[in-house]
């Protein structure tokens, strides 16, 4: 399929977005005019020295924004990877092995499904030490069940298909079949799940800071937003404090979604059997 100009433009935009965030996350020092701990006098409105003004401690908001990219994206992506990783393994085993394993795994999935996520996260954050590790582990461990379900459904569907049967005929081991034949088919199904988990992880991080249950020494977009609210940033109409991190979260999720859809575009031919 020859990509038209529209699609090429879409790819270029996505690539640009991803590129910007990757740079922000890996080498923030090059883009940010100041360090994350430098202080200049609080509550300054945007000026040439500080294009987004300063926060209550006097830190340059734009610099904070850039430095925050790393942790925010990390929390989002790693939670997603963890959740999808567990989900894929559980789903694969459940669908492939079937029988009692299926029952066990699905029972486990249902239990996790029923657990109310936000209260549990609040409880964990209240009783254990808050911070990025806790967030990643909690969110990863609570979000895998929908991924597991769709993976299992897909495996069940594909298990009886021609190419799998022929592979089994040839005597390939289960592990080989799972990884070479079935895994590629799963991508379009798990990719949207991955995006969902990532987005919800980044938002959960912001929500927890708002409730006062995160590590306030963290520099992340979520903490920036909640700082703005708890230090009168909202009342003082300092939209330049809380709006940029919000946009970053939205665009960050967009960027991750674009990677997903880019990949999906290539494999669409494969699954249209």
């Amino acid at each position: 399929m020859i990509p038209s100009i529209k699609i090429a433009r879409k790819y270029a935009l996505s690539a640009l977005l991803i590129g910007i965030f990757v740079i922000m996350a890996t080498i923030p020092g090059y883009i940010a005019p100041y360090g994350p701990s430098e202080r200049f006098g609080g509550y300054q409105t945007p000026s040439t020295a500080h294009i987004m003004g300063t926060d209550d401690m006097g830190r340059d908001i734009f610099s904070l924004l850039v430095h925050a990219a790393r942790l925010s994206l990390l929390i989002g992506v790693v939670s997603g990877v963890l959740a999808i990783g567990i989900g894929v393994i559980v789903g694969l085993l459940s669908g492939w092995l079937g029988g009692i394993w299926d029952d066990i795994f699905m029972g486990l999935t249902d239990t996790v499904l029923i657990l109310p996520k936000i209260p549990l996260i609040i409880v964990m954050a209240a009783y254990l030490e808050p911070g990025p590790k806790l967030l990643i582990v909690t969110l990863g461990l609570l979000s895998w069940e929908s991924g597991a379900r769709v993976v299992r459904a897909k495996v069940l569907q594909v298990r009886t298909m021609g190419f799998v049967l022929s592979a089994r005929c040839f005597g390939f081991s289960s592990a080989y079949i799972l990884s070479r034949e079935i895994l590629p088919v799963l991508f379009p199904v798990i990719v949207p799940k991955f995006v969902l988990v990532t987005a919800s992880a980044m938002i959960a991080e912001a929500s927890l800071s708002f409730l006062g249950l995160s590590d306030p020494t963290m520099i992340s977009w979520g903490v920036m937003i909640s700082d703005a609210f708890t230090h009168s940033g909202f009342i003082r109409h300092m939209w330049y404090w809380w709006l940029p991190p919000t946009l970053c979260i939205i665009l960050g999720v967009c960027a991750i979604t674009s990677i997903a859809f880019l990949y999906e575009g290539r494999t669409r031919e494969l699954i249209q059997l």
Partner: protein
Amino acid sequence: MEIQKVKQKYISWSIGLSLLLILLVLGGGNVSASDNESKTLKIATANEIKSPSFLGDYNFELFQTISNSALLQMDENGNIIANLAKSWFASPDHTEWTFVIDDKYQWSDGTPLTPEDVAFTINYRGQLASSGWIGDTLVDTTTTDDSVTFIFNKPYSRLDFEFLSYSTIPKHIWESVSDPEAKTSNGPYVGCGQYYIKSVDVNSATLILEKNPYWKGEEPYYDTIEIHWFSNDNASSFALEKGEVDTYWRYASTYPYAAVSVLEQNNRFDIFQAPSIGFSFLGFNLLKGVGADLEFRKAVSSAINYEELMQITTLGYGSIPTKGFVPPSMPYYQEMPSLIYDPQAAEDILTAAGYIDSDKNGIRETPDGEELLVNLVIRQEYSREGKLVAEYLRDVGIQVNLKVVEVNTWYDLKDNYQYDLTITRTTPWGMLMHANWGTGYFDSRRTGQGVLHTDDNPAYLELCDAILATTDTNLLEMYAQEIQEYYAEYLPGVALYWKQDITPTNKDITGWYSTPFKGILNEISFMRIHPKT
């Protein structure tokens, strides 16, 4: 086409819903429009009442100040003055206290108020957790026509102070209640001050006080006082700016400093400032670890950039404290040497005390050879102070592990001495309680939610006992000086900044009166406030 039909349905539904919405907005607004004929004062607060339990809910009790007058109250200078009791005195050994009741105060349901009610109140409170000490020490209560006498099994030189916080409750209502803290009711509650509590509703987040028809004193201007509480500060600030409420009050706290500038531009408010005797301070674990080393504490007190810290946390509505811990607005304040930011001095003291960075990694080692790592354990609300202090200490070679924990964990760690440094606050009451001048926070013999109980130095404890044993003002002045000198020399705690408490008030209302104990929420204030015209 099916799609067209769906679209049409969509459109008609949207129009219908929008109409409903408009009706709601217009109608709702009218339904809830305030009655302009009754004279109503509205107060916003952040102290939420969670349950309509008169004796059980902590925040509910705060608002009983004006409805169920305590025996005594505090004036703007911190002196204890008459309230329900028009005069009072103690026996020479301070085991017997007599209060003469002012007959201005009458119950709002017409029942006459007698000393029996006061006797009942204090004895009843002896059953409650928060005032259990009464149950332990009160041995007898006697009454006459106009007075009541309490007899204790040990001397209390500061009983008048303790009695500031106990609202008086009607005997004829409460004597039949078996579980006082569990009794909930939406009102009305019989009160004896200028006002009584008409209703409390946790669903509408409102507490309403009405004029007490049987009050025999000077009549206050306002017929009704409404207390509105909000779950988040942004909402209360918005309500204040819009003029939905006349003022903002929060126990032992200030209106958020950063939001004051918006009010100043608004031009609808007077910004009422009063020096607070509560403040934030850095506490040390005096019993084990580096906190026990006086030289370490001295070094820390020089390492903090007080000017910057004060500026960031109070936006200029504060001042740099002295080593004496006790702020200027407290009685018998003594000017102690100021706390000075001198990182070089801090480094010199540390080096001289044996904390040397031998491996040149930027972190000093203790004389035992271990890395000088301190645990700074704080609650979320002190994260700014915590971050800054951690940075200042790191700059002089002290490695800080900043642990932010939620409230109950903090109580746990603090009570079990599992920290090196902590940052917390004193409240006005906290500064005055026990033997006054902040001793409640350090005396190791008294536990409590907000106190550190870390100082077991016999000199300190003896001083506290001496204060508790006398009411002689000359002696007290001397003791006050000794306490402040002790603080300056031994530094059990380092005040981080002293502050003003800000109360924004409606420009059109005048007569506000502020006390160190409860700010503008006091009887004198409500007796005096009236519109300027």
